[in-house]
């Protein structure tokens, strides 16, 4: 297929969530997996080389177009509203869930030393974390983990793509 790259580019362009390569394979029935991944990598490189306002990124197990960091403030201005970022408290709860998952609420509260019901609810509503099950102990407390939306929001391919706690420590110092 000689316009393979163009097709893939269009498929990723129209999608609102990161497009997985298996979904692309599903659309392009007869094309080999390898050809598709070559084409995607080609596209990623082309956008990198062009170094324009848009980049193709691998996030949350799929591919997605996003604006470059350098133009972020201008896009912000166009959109008009100031995008609410997470509060420091919510970010702390999210960090504990992300690094300790699957984790119970009581474990997060022990680390943070405060009640986390408010931040937990906010993160659930924003779909950054989710309930992954219940622990088999008295009271059957719920256990939490991060979502695909979390990976998408922080631009991570997979959870193993998260910087290690040590890396954060070194950056902070």
């Amino acid at each position, binding site marked *: 297929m000689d316009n393979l790259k163009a097709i893939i580019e269009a498929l990723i*362009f129209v999608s609102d969530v990161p497009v997985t390569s298996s979904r692309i394979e599903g659309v392009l029935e007869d094309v080999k997996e390898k050809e598709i991944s070559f084409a995607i990598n080609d596209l990623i490189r082309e956008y990198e080389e062009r170094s324009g306002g848009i980049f193709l990124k691998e996030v949350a197990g799929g591919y997605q177009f996003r604006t*470059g*960091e350098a133009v*972020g403030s201008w896009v912000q201005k166009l959109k008009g509203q100031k995008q609410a970022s997470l509060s420091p408290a919510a970010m702390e709860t999210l960090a504990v869930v992300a690094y300790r998952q699957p984790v119970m609420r009581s474990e997060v509260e022990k680390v943070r*030393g*405060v009640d986390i019901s408010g931040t937990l609810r906010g993160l659930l509503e*924003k779909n950054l974390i989710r*309930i992954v099950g*219940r622990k088999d102990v008295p009271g059957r407390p719920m256990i939490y983990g991060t*979502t695909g939306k979390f990976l998408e929001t922080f631009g991570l391919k997979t959870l193993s793509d998260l910087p290690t706690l040590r890396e954060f420590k070194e950056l902070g110092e």
Partner: protein
Amino acid sequence: MTAGAYEIKLDIFEGPLDLLLYLIRKNEVDIYDIPIALITRQYMKYIEAMKSLNLDLAGEYLVLAATLTHIKSRMLLPVSEEDEKEGDVDPREELVKQLLEYKTFKEAALGLDRMNILGRDVFGRDHAGEELEKEEQTLREIGIFELVEAFRRISLDIGQKDLMEIDAEKMSLSDRINDIVDELERRGELTFTDLLEDTGNRKRLIYTFLAILELVKLRIIKAYQAIPYGTIRICLARK
């Protein structure tokens, strides 16, 4: 030291551990060798300040105040023979461990905040077009009763077919909850019937239904209906 020497920036603390870390940093003392008397005194001053400002003082602050006082008193006591046998544990050890752990995650939170966050630093495509495509139906949110009624109808349809079946399938509610959330993430919206009909047997049907109720209760999903006894649509309750 006078109270005036303290800058009161109470709202910036994310909790008692955060306040304690701040005091340790401010006094430039070693976290492994905290001068408990000094830090406890300053910590109490902050607590007093919060009280005098009529701030809603969270109970956790008081718990840590009690812990600090307890450690302080233990450090004043001479070490008894029993303690010595037990290996002479520093009464501060537990607190230091907790502080270090909290510090790690506080740094991680700051680290996450420095990353390029979608919707703040980088942006995806806006999908304004898709909003228009959505049917112009007015949907109303429904409650447990409608769900139960719909469940009753579907369970009647499935009937007693599997009455004799010996069910060896292992199933748990959390598995069904995860399956449903995954399915919704993939497909965006499902009907109640979609979810229940592919279940096949009665046990699975009941688990699925319980999972839906649990998810509605936790406000992870929302259920809508256009007309009474109409199709029930289920979607994730994200903003």
